[in-house]
């Protein structure tokens, strides 16, 4: 693999000190993101978000445009640009606080405890390095292994992802991979350092329908095999139905409902969840179910339910205050009518 | 409806003015233009000999000192602004007027026409600019109109290729196709939809090209092929004063040199600002 020569060796971060295995894997409490300097009216793309990912579970974070779902992923990785955005609240990964953590600490966590897989695989892989080479590099950054061993592990990973002729393929560049293969390689990269949590941000958007299935099945299989957890971020409820056991529904920066996928998707409590499912599952001829209106434009601090103006169940009180996410039977819902 | 529209316009104008006043680059540029336009009214005759002793250093009366002929350097620098900036704007302007439509047409038509124009432009640009300019001056003579044409000519390929690259992605864009669905002809589409959408790129480039034009003019004058003394022109003045540096009379060459640097920096920074604000 001649493409993996660097100017200087990658910085060795060493193994991170062992994090407490008894803790919840990911615990997000009251996460809010403000954009705008003090004085100007701040925009809040995320407000008071609560989210849990337990060991071994697969959580689907569903949201349409303007929901703030991708911002959540960036926040969990500690990758929001500090200059323009302010993050408040708590994000605890295995007990370790992400909000306000130093960059060095975050670098230790990324890759070895939490990894991410993006929407466009050809964009998340470096085009001038061989695929095997860059995966090997990531391994060497986090673990104390020899060059040869890291290369072998990279080849093994590609093979486990179902890439045929992995040894030869490891020496190829990204542009020589097809779309589906590139996404498998991106998954290999993300899993290379055995993270506890894999975040997949729209991993199948832009892929053909028949290919989407294959990639999703692979992701679930690999995550399960490694005993890791999955946070799947998507706008497509169908994907969540297929792959996740837990689901959280985001709207305009707020969690509207969360709980087990079986419960929420079969009998949604929040009107937005319900209407979203109705629209998604629409099958009648000559009519499609839809939600009238549009997603609210960029807004500041919410003082009312953001869905009120479009909600078929709305009452005047819905515009009076922001409903909190509360425990109800087998799930959590944010709606004053529940 | 009309009331709110003009209120909105007024609001936009005042906020635009406020931005201009707050940005140093815009102020510097305006200062340059003012100096070029009306500066000469406020200074001495730049060709008047013996205004002070020859080679007098800067003083309260003679801000930039005098040169070897006793001419007021300050007055000459101010007057030269008109020449340098004037030639630059006109030359760059001619280059835009010729290069931009050609580039847009090349991108729109494509095919052999496009390839032909592209090759011609590239050949032109392959020549070292200064040598090319020198050659043409040597052949045609260094009159100011000639200089303007020469500088315009070497800038045309720049606009041609710039416009072409800006137009190429637009040609296949959906809104251009939509205009075709509306039955619009090619020339209408170019005029209404394509050119307005590339104009921002052109404006930014224009400023850079003016800076380049000044450099070429100053360089030509410096080697004696451009404007000849005693006509005040920054490059020629630097040449005229270069010999005196070794004798300790630094002001003769320095001030026109600073003028060149300041102008070019302002123009380049202006281009940056325009580009980043769109």
């Amino acid at each position, binding site marked *: 693999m001649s493409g993996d020569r660097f100017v200087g060796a990658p910085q060795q971060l060493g193994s991170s000190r062992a994090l407490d295995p008894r803790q919840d894997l990911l615990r997000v409490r009251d996460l809010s993101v403000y954009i705008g300097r003090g004085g100007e009216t701040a925009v809040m793309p995320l407000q008071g978000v609560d989210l849990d990912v337990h060991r071994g579970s697969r959580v689907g974070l569903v949201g349409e445009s303007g929901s703030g779902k991708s911002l959540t992923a960036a926040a969990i990785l500690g990758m929001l640009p500090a200059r323009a955005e302010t993050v408040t609240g708590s994000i605890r990964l295995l007990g370790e606080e992400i909000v306000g953590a130093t960059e060095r600490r975050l670098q230790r966590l990324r890759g070895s405890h939490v990894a991410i897989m993006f929407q466009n695989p050809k964009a998340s892989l470096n085009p001038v390095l061989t695929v095997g080479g860059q995966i090997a590099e990531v391994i060497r950054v986090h673990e104390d292994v020899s060059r040869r061993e890291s290369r072998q592990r990279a080849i093994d990973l590609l093979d486990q992802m179902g890439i045929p002729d992995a040894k030869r393929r490891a020496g190829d560049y990204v542009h020589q991979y097809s779309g589906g293969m590139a996404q498998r390689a991106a998954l290999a990269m993300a899993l290379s350092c055995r993270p506890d949590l894999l975040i997949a941000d729209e991993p199948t958007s832009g892929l053909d*329908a028949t290919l989407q299935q294959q990639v999703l099945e692979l992701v679930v299989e690999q995550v399960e095999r490694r005993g890791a957890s999955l946070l799947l971020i998507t706008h497509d409820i169908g994907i969540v139905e297929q792959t996740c056991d837990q689901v959280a529904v985001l709207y305009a920066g707020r969690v509207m409902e969360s709980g087990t996928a079986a419960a929420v998707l079969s009998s949604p409590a929040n009107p937005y969840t319900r209407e979203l499912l109705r629209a*998604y599952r*629409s099958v009648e001829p000559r009519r499609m179910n839809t939600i009238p209106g*549009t997603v609210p434009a960029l807004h500041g601090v919410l003082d009312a339910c953001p869905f009120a103006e479009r909600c078929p169940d709305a009452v005047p009180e819905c515009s009076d205050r922001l409903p909190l996410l509360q425990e109800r039977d087998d799930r959590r819902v944010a709606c004053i009518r529940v | 409806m009309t009331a709110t529209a003009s209120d909105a316009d007024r609001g936009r104008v005042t906020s635009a003015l406020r931005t201009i006043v707050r940005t140093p680059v815009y102020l510097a540029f305006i200062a340059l233009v003012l100096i070029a336009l009306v500066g000469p009214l406020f200074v001495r005759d730049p060709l008047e000999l013996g205004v002070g002793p020859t080679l007098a250093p800067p003083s309260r009366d003679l801000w930039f000192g005098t040169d070897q002929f006793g001419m007021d350097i300050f007055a000459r620098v101010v007057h030269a602004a008109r020449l340098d900036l004037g030639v630059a704007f006109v030359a760059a302007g001619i280059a835009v007027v010729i290069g931009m439509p050609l580039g847009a047409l090349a991108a729109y038509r494509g095919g052999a026409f496009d390839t032909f124009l592209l090759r011609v432009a590239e050949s032109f640009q392959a020549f070292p600019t200064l040598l090319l300019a020198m050659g043409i001056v040597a052949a045609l003579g260094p009159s100011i109109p000639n200089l303007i044409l020469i500088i315009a000519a070497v800038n045309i390929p720049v606009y041609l290729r710039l416009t072409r690259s800006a137009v190429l992605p637009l040609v296949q864009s959906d*809104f251009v196709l939509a*205009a075709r669905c*509306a039955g619009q002809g090619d020339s209408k589409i170019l005029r209404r*939809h394509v050119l307005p959408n590339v104009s921002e790129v052109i404006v930014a480039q224009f400023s850079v090209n003016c800076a380049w034009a000044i450099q070429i003019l100053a360089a030509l004058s410096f080697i004696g092929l451009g404007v000849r003394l005693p006509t005040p022109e920054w490059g020629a003045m630097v040449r005229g004063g270069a010999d005196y540096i070794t004798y300790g009379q630094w002001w003769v060459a320095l001030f026109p040199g600073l003028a060149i640097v300041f102008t070019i920096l302002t123009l380049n920074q202006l281009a940056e600002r325009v580009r980043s604000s769109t």
Partner: protein
Amino acid sequence: MHPGLMPDGSILEVRDLVKDYETKDARLRTRVARAVDHVSFGIAPGETFAVVGESGSGKSTIGRVLLHLTPATAGSVRFRGDELVGLGERRFRPYRRQLQMVFQDPLAAFDPRRSIRSSLREFAELAGQGDRQAQDQAIDAAIEDVGLPPVMARRRPGQVSGGQLQRLSVARALLVSPSLVFLDEPTSALDVSIRGQVVNLLLDRQDRDGVAYLLVAHDLRVVSAMASRVAVMYLGQLVEVGSRDTVYSTPRHPYTRGLLRAAGMEEAVRDQADVRLTGELSEEHARRTGCRLAPRCPFAEARCDEPQELQATDDGQLVRCWKAVEVPETIGLRSLPVVTEREGSG
């Protein structure tokens, strides 16, 4: 041609349409890719004919050839009997009042520097509205017709939300009262919860004005709501054509079945085994003389390498798969009506 493919009285008749593209491969050699490979179909007045397929199938290209936005390489496209292929732009112009399109991304379909009103005005001109006042009235009426306030016309595209902008795009296309509108993935750029707004709007206009649609989409639920007939396209060829009900309830071609399964719509499919397609769509497969799905199809065998034709069944469905026609039980289909006609390579 079989009426399931070309209904009697079709206003649009496409025969053996071919479209080739030249591309450069990674080594900068020029290669010819055939996006549309001898495709034939007809569209009856007021109906919605949907072409379904994944990216790279060539479906968008068909519409663009129809709208004269790209030239056909070969074949015939007749609108109300008039041949459109080979017409120069000037001779085609009168047809622009009859044939319109709605683009996939509404934000790209409007000139970002012009107001909505200005963009719509071009179409009002095409519709023959003479003076400015008449144009403005037509524009206002069109905008209200799609459920939006006319004052929105003053905004620029960037100031309008996606769903609303797509509705304005529909308003624009319908301004000239066309007979046929090419809908190029009209909801793909929109959120799931609002795609219905555009779909219902299009359906209402169709009910009221009798406009026909050529709907190209990969969203099978949108197609389910809108289409009267459906054609499934794979790597440049039609592999299955039939009425909406038969294609959704009894799909025959393995690719159609794989698509429905991937869309989670297999509950609509009765009594059939699941079909799982492996691998990916690839341009190399498009060069095969035989079935192009064979490299990915779980039922493929040697005979699949021979050229396959579209064959008709008793209930008016057409399939390009010999197994679906001759030995349906072996690929998990119920025993279905026997073949009565061979269709040729149409």
